[in-house]
């Protein structure tokens, strides 16, 4: 089994253990679902086609929107997990790619217990991939309050948030200076961007800034909770994690594992998306990008097949199948061939002679 497949099984088991039900969906949805929420998607390029009844359909570029649309308000908390392929433009491939994605969504009367459970599962998902992992957590209400204090109009706000996401302090300086923003408010935002690290280091700084006390208290209580579960070492508070504030609110996070150059997990609270989709419910969830793990394990097969079993055209089929069965009895693979296929890498070369198997080469 390939490394990514083993991870998928392990994640599925993790989510199932905490009572998440598997969500299966079809490969395509009506295009309107995505067209109305393009900014929520990682890439706004979507593969579309016209269905037999003339409706414009899309190969799904995202799973969350479908889950949100399909759910019903009321009835407690809906907890689901998924392993689905999505279809997005990849900058690297300069074209569309099929990407395997796993994740969970928790929708309904979401409270801080749900958010804590989601964060715990995010850390455990990362640890399933590698023990050398970090979950960066941010709280958008804190960022929002400090950005609002600069009195920025929409375009400038976008530029400021871009700088926050890039940890670009000199860029923030330039924007604030050019706009004549309150130097005190600018200094407070810069402190926020500069301050990242273990919760024990960052929380006192946040308290000293005196902003968004309820949001700081939420951050403190959630990180305390994860610390009590023995997961504190994997957490960092880092405000460079900035989701789109038209969809996300409150806690947002991003996960990294050592050896993979981009984030492999991202998620957060998305109550604003729920409002936008006219759902009277709150929500939190995350996705794990399994395509990032393809080269991570470093596992490469030394051979394509364990044994090549050569046979002559007049060999008895029963004798051939018996020989192949015997050679593969210990779980090793066998391919029956007339000649050795070009470029095939094998460990053992054997020939069927009547009822007898003769080993010609053995590189084990």
């Amino acid at each position, binding site marked *: 089994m390939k490394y990514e497949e083993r991870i998928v099984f392990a994640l599925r088991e993790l989510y199932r253990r905490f009572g998440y039900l598997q969500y299966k969906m079809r490969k395509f949805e009506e295009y309107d679902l995505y067209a109305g929420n393009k900014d929520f998607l990682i890439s706004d390029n979507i593969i579309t086609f016209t269905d037999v009844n003339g409706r414009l359909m899309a190969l799904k570029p995202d799973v969350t929107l479908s889950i949100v649309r399909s759910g019903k308000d009321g009835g407690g908390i809906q907890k689901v997990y998924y392993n689905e392929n999505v279809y997005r433009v990849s900058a690297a491939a300069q074209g569309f790619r099929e990407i395997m994605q796993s994740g969970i969504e928790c929708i309904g009367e979401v409270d801080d217990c749900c958010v804590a459970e989601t964060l715990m599962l995010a850390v455990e998902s990362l640890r399933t991939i590698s023990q050398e992992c970090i979950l960066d957590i941010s709280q958008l209400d804190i960022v929002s309050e400090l950005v609002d204090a600069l009195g920025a109009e929409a375009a400038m706000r976008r530029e400021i948030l871009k700088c926050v996401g890039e940890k670009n302090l000199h*860029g923030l300086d330039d924007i604030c200076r050019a706009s004549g923003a309150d130097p005190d408010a600018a200094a407070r935002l810069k402190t926020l961007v500069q301050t990242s690290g273990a919760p024990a280091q960052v929380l006192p700084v946040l308290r000293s800034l005196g902003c968004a006390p309820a949001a700081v208290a939420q951050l403190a209580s959630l990180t305390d909770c994860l610390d009590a579960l023995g997961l504190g070492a994997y957490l960092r508070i880092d405000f460079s994690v900035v989701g789109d504030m038209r969809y996300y609110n409150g806690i947002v996070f991003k996960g990294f594992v050592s050896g993979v150059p981009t984030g492999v997990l991202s998620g957060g609270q998305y109550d604003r998306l729920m409002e936008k989709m006219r759902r009277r419910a709150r929500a939190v969830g995350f996705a794990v990008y399994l395509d990032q793990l393809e080269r991570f394990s470093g596992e490469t097969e030394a051979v394509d097949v364990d044994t090549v079993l050569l046979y002559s055209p007049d060999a008895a089929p029963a004798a051939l199948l018996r020989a192949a069965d015997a050679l593969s009895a210990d779980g090793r693979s066998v391919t029956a061939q007339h000649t050795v296929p070009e470029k095939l890498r094998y460990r053992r070369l054997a020939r069927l002679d009547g009822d007898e198997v003769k080993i010609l080469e053995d590189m084990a």
Partner: protein
Amino acid sequence: MKTWLNIALPKGRLGDKVYDMFARAGFECPDILEENRKLVFENAALMLRYFWVKPSDVAVYVERGAADIGVAGKDILLEYAPDVYEMLDLKVGKCRMAVAARHDFYDDQRRTLRVATKFTNIAAGYYSAQGRDIDIIHLNGSVEIAPILGLSDVIVDIVETGRTLKENHLEVRETVVPISARLIANKASYEFKREIIDRLREGLALLAEEAEA
């Protein structure tokens, strides 16, 4: 466990200047000063590995994690928008992205402006913010020739001293954005090599301030 810090520097004059700053900040790699054609240099004692790469490729190496950190011009960061941290303005390699035109060019606002440039995203963003309709002509080099031959009305390009423009009877009409070299970091590398990257950033910040003073 200590691991290597991989650093991508731009080949050429800017790279030499930037390496000098890195060395003065305590991140030296003496082998890099040898005259040879090698592209990778290591200081095993400090676990530093430097690569020389084409200036426009530095951001790619860093974004893809082949390098943990690197130095790239702001022009490249604006044009390609790589998903990296922009940690510091090194305040070297200063120039500006500007709109230039022939001395006798009159900008008739009622007409679509023809803009020749290597930096299509920067040009498109600049004119879109002004609500100006433009026709972008992507060129890979010798952009200055476009207005002379009537291929474009203006160019958007990097201007350092302005000498090339002057020799081709062009002049700067507007500054789009000031440019300088920036220290960039891969987002995942920063998570796992934060301490050394922060130490380097602090050392370089002091040198950048000194140079500016």
